[in-house]
């Protein structure tokens, strides 16, 4: 299976789309738009998982796709939107690194991911190795977002987009045991619940979601 064959091309297209959305996460200037892009990424991830289920003849991947569609494309974005509206959070994205430099760093990270992943996986199937390179790029972009954004909610979004990359990697490897997909999905839900607890408490205590306000409380107190 390689370039020019339908299973490969569609999988590649979907993976590329998810990667593109990771870049879009980086250049949004409004928090609400970031959440919309995250929802779109979740939806595309669900499609990618379903396609892999079809190609590999692995029905359990449809379940992964369903979980991704319900949780990542619908429930979590709705919850985030509700949180933002309810708490009247700052609408703007507060970036530690400007948008231009973020995008350039993103391109560099994708190049790095490809240079790392492709040469070492020559023995694996073409689909799996391309998928791995794309997934690694998405993971690195998620980390970049977590590093360069100051709002707590955007850091959570970065973590979730990183998780999307992981799920993409997991579904791309034929025969990966189901336990991993399920746990990944469960993890995201749990992560958000835990994050939600913190987010609410931060609001109560500090009246802001900017974690810079927490920094005086870190390290050793005098």
């Amino acid at each position, binding site marked *: 299976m390689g370039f020019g064959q339908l299973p490969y091309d569609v999988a590649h297209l979907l993976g590329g789309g998810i990667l593109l959305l990771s870049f879009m996460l980086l250049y949004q200037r409004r928090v609400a738009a970031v959440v919309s892009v995250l929802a779109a990424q979740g939806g595309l991830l669900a499609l990618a998982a379903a396609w892999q289920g079809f190609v590999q003849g692995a029905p359990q991947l449809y379940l992964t796709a369903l979980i991704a569609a319900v949780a990542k494309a619908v429930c979590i974005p709705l919850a985030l939107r509700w949180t933002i509206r309810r708490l009247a959070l700052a609408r703007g994205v507060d970036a530690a690194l400007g948008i231009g430099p973020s995008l350039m760093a993103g391109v560099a990270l994708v190049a790095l991911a490809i240079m790392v992943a492709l040469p070492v996986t*020559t023995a694996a199937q073409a689909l799996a190795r391309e998928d791995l390179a794309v997934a690694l790029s998405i993971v690195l972009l998620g980390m970049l977002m977590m590093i360069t954004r100051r709002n707590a909610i955007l850091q959570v979004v970065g973590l979730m987009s990183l998780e999307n990359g992981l799920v993409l990697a997991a579904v791309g490897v034929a025969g990966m045991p189901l336990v*991993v997909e399920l746990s990944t999905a469960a993890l995201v839900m749990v992560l958000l619940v835990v994050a939600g607890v913190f987010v609410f408490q931060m609001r109560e205590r500090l009246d802001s979601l900017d974690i810079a306000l927490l920094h005086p409380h870190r390290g050793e107190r005098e």
Partner: protein
Amino acid sequence: MPLAWLLVLLPWAGAAALGFLPRERVAALANCGVSGITFLLALLLLAEPQEVTGWTRLDALNLPLLLLASLIGLTTAIYSLGAIADEGLDPRRLRAFHVAFQLFMGAQALALLADDLGVMWVAIEVATLASVLMVGLHGTPAAIEAAWKFFILCGVGIALALLGTIILYLAAQPVLGEGGGLSWAALRAVAARCDPGVLNLAFVFLLVGYGTKAGLVPLHAWLPDAEAEGPIAISAVLSGLLLNAALLAVLRAKAIVGAHPEAVQPGALLLGFGLASVLVAAFALWRRRDARRFFAWSSILHMGLATTGFGFGGAAGNLAGLLHMLGHSLTKSAVFFGIGAAVRLRGSQRITDLGGLCIAAPRLGWALAIGIAAVAGLPPFALFASEYLLVSEAAAGHPWAILPLGLGLLVAVAAKVQTLQALCFGDPPPDRATGKVDWTSLGPIWAHLLLALLLGMVLPGPLRAMLGEAAGVAG
């Protein structure tokens, strides 16, 4: 059901039940009861055959760690029986504490037991989430900052560990065939025939991912903050158990990758992380004013030393690393119990506010003094034995490592002796209250120190045999 599974399911059932117990005292006693039964079950494991059952395995490598974990679970529950009332938690948070504690105990037992690497990952994940909850329990800005940092850094670490697990499967899949699963035993058996490049990539992600959880420099930033917040019982189990579970995961990954002759040498990477942790932590110890942070940095140091031992590899290096893990868990949790009791007396965590304990509260002061001496690696406790093994292994096979290792050890011992003097000797601050310390604090401290002494002085024959076998398993 295999006995080993009970070690996981019983604490989880206990967690569910504790969520419905409204009375504080009853809940704390029930917490002790669950931990006590878990400990007895863990003792019964000694008679069980060492084999793989389903997703779990029992071998010489995880058995001593399991026994120790259930023992520390029990002593921590006893300690918190006396201490938790002073934490000032409202009933809802108190219930959350007990639930999270037993959830954590079950999850870390599963992480130690897991044969399937996916299950191991899920277990470490659950243990992390439970401990994040416990760290942030007080809800003060400092606690939330610590919990947030813990959550974000370990969230990324855990995600990278999952990526490493997936890549490991990708490496093994051409050999194992589809549906081969993620069994450690199976992966280790086929590792020699896998593609070395993919194995390298997998190992790097697993090491960075689980290394974050084990608090290795430069991935350690969450650990001092996390251990300085939350009820003090948490510091004992974080230092004593969570770090061990993460380090065991690194060891399992090392054993797989090390089975391939052309893959990266995992020992060299472990040595790098280990020695960096030793040096950074040894110097960082000098700048600490907060007692809990001081001993959290000491945990980073000891994890670094154990990692260095595993980095040396071979029977002697692995034995030193394992003994160091066991000794560190015992002594460090004893010290945290002592620090906790002192903090309750004085109402402050600063080292200067805690001074003069041997005069103000002699029974606590002396127990803590001996505990800190044990953590510093002074003879005759277990950490001295393992550090001696470590240095002699370095001298025998890796002479270049003696300089950084020796420097780190000396600087750290000096810092700990200084803190020992500041905390236990000298005059107590005049305006601080003195009081009595009850058996729920002193009992666990002495029990741990006695065991550490036993490990350091005699190392009973059967245990020595088991550790020797474990050193072989670790590869």
